[in-house]
C-alpha cells in the first residue's frame, strides 16, 4: 500500500505537466528551439496523457491495485465467515474485566448472550489455554471495498476498449447539404458512417443582451436515399443513429455570392458558393470561387475568382462597391489590376451581394467502451458509499487462566472502544446484580 500511495502521488504530480503544456495545439511547436522540440517529442509532451510515461505510470498503479486486491481477497472472504480469522490485532483496544463472586464459566455464558444480541453470530473457539468468543458487525465492509477497488480496473479497461473500437470525428454541414463521412480528430483520416446525414436547417438564438441562447441543427438520417430518422440536435442533447452519436459542437456563417457576368449583350447571373466551379455561357471559360468575404479590407463584400479561359488564366477580386472604390482611388486598376472586374475581357464581373447561411459543426463519435466505464464508475461509487455506511466492528471475549478480557476493534463508526466496553460491562454487571 505504501507503493500505491507513492504511485498515486507521482501520477498526480505528473498529471500537472499536461495542463501546463498545450496538448496537441498547433502553435506549440512554433516557439521551440530544435533541441527543445526533440525533448518534447521524445517525451510525447504535447500528447502527454497518451504518452508512454503517463500510461506506464497508470499501468503500474493498475497492476499494484490488481496484485494487492487479489492477494487480499482470500483472507477477506475468510474474514467474512469468521471474525477472529487472522487473530486479534495488536492495536485493538483490550480491557480486562473482573467479576466478583462468580465463576468465569457462567460470566462467559452471559457475555456470549450479550455479544450475540449486539453483534449477531458468535463463534466459539476452545483451546488448551482457554475459551475465545469472537463476533463481528459489518462483515462485508472490506470485501465490498475491495470490489470497489477492482472496479477501477473495469473503468480503465472500458477506456482502453473505447479507444480501440470507437472513434472521435468532426464534420461541417451547410444547411441543406449532406454527408456520409466524418473526419477523425486524432489523426488524419475519414470515417465512413454507413449512412447519410443531412442538415435540414440550423437556428442560432440569442438573448436580448447578445449572449447565445440556443443552437439547433435539424438533422435527417438517410439510408439508400430514404429518410429513416429525423431529430433536433442541441447542445447537451445529442442525437444517436445506428450507434453513432452526433453532438452540436459549433457553427459558423457561410456566404453565397450573387455574381453577374456580362459578355457583350449576354448577361448571366450565378449564385456561387466558396470552393465551387462554374462554366460560363461561352462553354469554354470556367470560374472557381476561391474566397467569399463579408467585408474585405474594409471595402465591403468581395469575391475572389479564379478564371481560366482558352487563352487567359488568373485571379480577380470582384467588389460589390467597385464604383465607389474606383472613384475614390482613380488609379486603382493600374496599381492593382487584380481588382479590375474587366480584367478578363470580354467578361465583366460584378457582385450584387452576398446571402448568408449557417454551417453547423458536429462532433461525431462512437464509444462502445463508454458503457463499461459507466458501469465501472457506478460500481466504484456504490462500493465506497455502502462501505462507508457499514461500520465494521469486531469483538473478542477471552477467558484465560481464570481471567476474562474483552477486546474491541472499531472501524469508522460512532462511539469509541471505551464506550463500547463500558456498555457491555454495565450489561454484565446489571445481570449479575
Amino acid at each position, binding site marked *: 500500500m505504501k507503493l500505491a500511495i507513492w504511485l498515486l502521488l507521482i501520477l498526480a504530480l505528473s498529471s500537472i505537466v499536461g495542463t501546463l503544456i498545450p496538448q496537441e495545439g498547433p502553435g506549440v511547436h512554433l516557439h521551440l528551439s530544435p533541441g527543445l522540440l526533440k525533448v518534447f517529442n521524445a517525451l510525447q509532451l504535447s500528447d502527454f496523457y497518451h504518452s508512454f510515461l503517463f500510461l506506464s505510470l497508470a499501468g503500474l498503479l493498475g497492476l499494484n491495485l490488481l496484485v494487492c486486491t487479489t492477494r487480499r481477497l482470500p483472507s477477506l472472504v475468510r474474514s467474512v465467515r469468521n471474525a477472529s480469522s487472522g487473530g486479534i490485532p495488536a492495536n485493538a483496544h483490550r480491557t480486562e474485566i473482573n467479576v466478583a463472586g462468580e465463576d468465569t464459566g457462567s460470566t462467559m455464558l452471559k457475555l456470549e448472550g450479550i455479544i450475540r444480541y449486539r453483534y449477531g453470530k458468535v463463534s466459539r473457539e476452545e483451546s488448551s489455554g482457554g475459551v475465545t468468543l469472537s463476533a463481528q458487525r459489518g462483515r462485508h465492509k472490506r470485501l465490498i471495498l475491495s470490489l470497489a477497488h477492482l472496479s477501477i480496473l473495469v473503468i480503465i479497461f472500458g477506456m482502453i476498449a473505447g479507444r480501440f473500437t470507437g472513434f472521435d470525428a468532426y464534420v461541417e454541414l451547410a444547411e441543406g447539404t449532406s454527408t456520409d463521412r466524418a473526419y477523425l480528430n486524432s489523426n488524419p483520416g475519414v470515417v465512413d458512417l454507413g449512412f447519410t446525414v443531412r442538415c435540414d436547417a440550423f437556428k442560432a438564438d440569442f*438573448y436580448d*443582451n447578445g449572449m447565445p441562447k440556443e443552437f439547433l441543427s435539424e438533422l435527417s438520417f438517410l439510408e439508400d436515399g430514404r429518410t429513416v430518422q429525423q431529430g433536433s440536435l442541441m447542445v447537451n442533447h445529442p442525437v444517436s443513429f445506428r450507434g453513432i452519436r452526433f453532438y452540436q459542437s459549433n457553427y459558423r456563417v457561410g456566404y453565397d455570392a450573387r455574381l453577374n457576368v456580362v459578355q457583350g449583350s449576354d448577361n448571366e447571373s450565378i449564385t456561387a458558393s466558396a470552393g465551387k466551379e462554374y462554366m460560363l455561357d461561352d462553354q469554354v471559360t470556367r470560374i472557381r470561387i476561391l474566397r467569399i468575404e463579408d467585408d474585405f479590407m474594409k471595402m465591403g463584400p468581395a469575391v475572389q475568382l479564379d478564371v481560366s479561359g482558352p487563352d487567359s488564366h488568373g485571379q480577380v477580386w470582384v467588389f460589390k462597391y467597385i464604383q465607389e472604390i474606383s472613384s475614390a482611388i482613380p488609379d486603382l486598376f493600374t496599381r492593382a489590376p487584380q481588382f479590375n472586374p474587366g480584367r478578363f475581357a470580354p467578361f465583366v464581373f460584378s457582385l450584387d451581394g452576398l446571402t448568408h447561411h449557417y454551417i453547423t459543426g458536429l462532433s461525431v463519435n462512437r464509444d462502445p467502451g463508454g458503457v463499461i466505464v459507466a458501469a465501472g464508475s457506478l460500481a466504484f461509487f456504490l462500493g465506497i458509499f455502502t462501505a462507508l455506511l457499514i461500520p465494521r466492528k469486531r469483538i473478542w471475549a477471552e477467558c484465560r487462566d481464570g481471567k476474562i478480557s474483552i477486546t474491541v476493534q472499531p472501524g469508522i463508526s460512532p462511539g469509541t472502544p471505551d464506550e463500547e466496553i463500558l456498555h457491555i460491562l454495565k450489561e454484565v454487571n446489571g445481570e449479575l446484580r
Partner: protein
Amino acid sequence: MNTTILGWVTFIYLAAFAFFILRIVLGRRYFGIAGNILTAAGFVAHTAGLVFRWVESYHLGYGHAPLSNFYESLVFFSWTIVLFYLFVESRKAASTIGVFCLPISFIFMAYASFSPGISSQIQPLIPALKSNWLISHVITCFLGYAAFVIASVYSAFYLYRLRASGHAASANGIEERIYQILVIGFIFFTIGIMTGSVWANSAWGRYWGWDPKETWALITWLIYASALHARLIHSWSGKRFAILVLIGLASVLFTYFGVNYLPGLHSYL
C-alpha cells in the same frame, strides 16, 4: 436585492470572525457562543440571499439556479464552507476552528461582492450550461471542496498541536475527525467528477477529455485518495497524513481558481 443581502452577509461573517478571535485571545467561552450565533444568523441570511437570487432570475425570464458564473460560484463556495462548519460544530461544539473557517468564507464573500472585476449581475445561461446536470455537478463538487477546506483547517490545527505538545497522543481525536470529514468530502467530490463526466459526455461527446479543469480535479482526487490510504499505514498516519491534506487543499484552490489562467473549456467555472 439579493446582492445587498449577500453584501451584508459578508460583514456578519467578519463580525463572527472577530468574536472567534476574542474567544481565543481572551479565553472566554461566551465569545465563541456569540460567534456561532452570528455565523448561524449569517448562514440563514446567506441562504435567503441565494433563494432570492434564484427567484429573481425567474422574474428576469432566465430561470436558473444561482450557480452559473464566477460571482455565484464564490458565493456558493462560501455557503458550503459555512454549512460544513456549522455541521461539524453541531456535532462537536469546540469553537476552535471558527477562527479559521469564517475568514475564508468572509474573503470569498468580500471578493465576490467588492471586486470590480466580478459582475454580480444575473446572466442567462449559455447553451453549454443548459443541462439538468448543472445543479447536481456544481453542488456535489462544492460540497467536496468545502469538506476538504474544513479538513485542511483541522489538519493545520493538528500540526500546530503536534508542534506545541511534541507527541501525537493529544491530537489523536483530531486525526480521526480529519479522516471522517475527508471521507465525506471524497465521496461528494467523486460524485462531482462522475456527474461532470456524464454531463461532458452529453455536451461535448466525451466523458473525459483532459481539459485542465478535469485534469486538476483528477489531481485533487488522487492526492486525497493517497491521503485516505496514508491514514491506514502507521508510518504515514499523523503528520504526513495532515500534510497530504494540506497539499490537497492547494490542489483544490488551483482546481477552482488557477485553472482559469490555463486554456480550457471550463472558462465559465
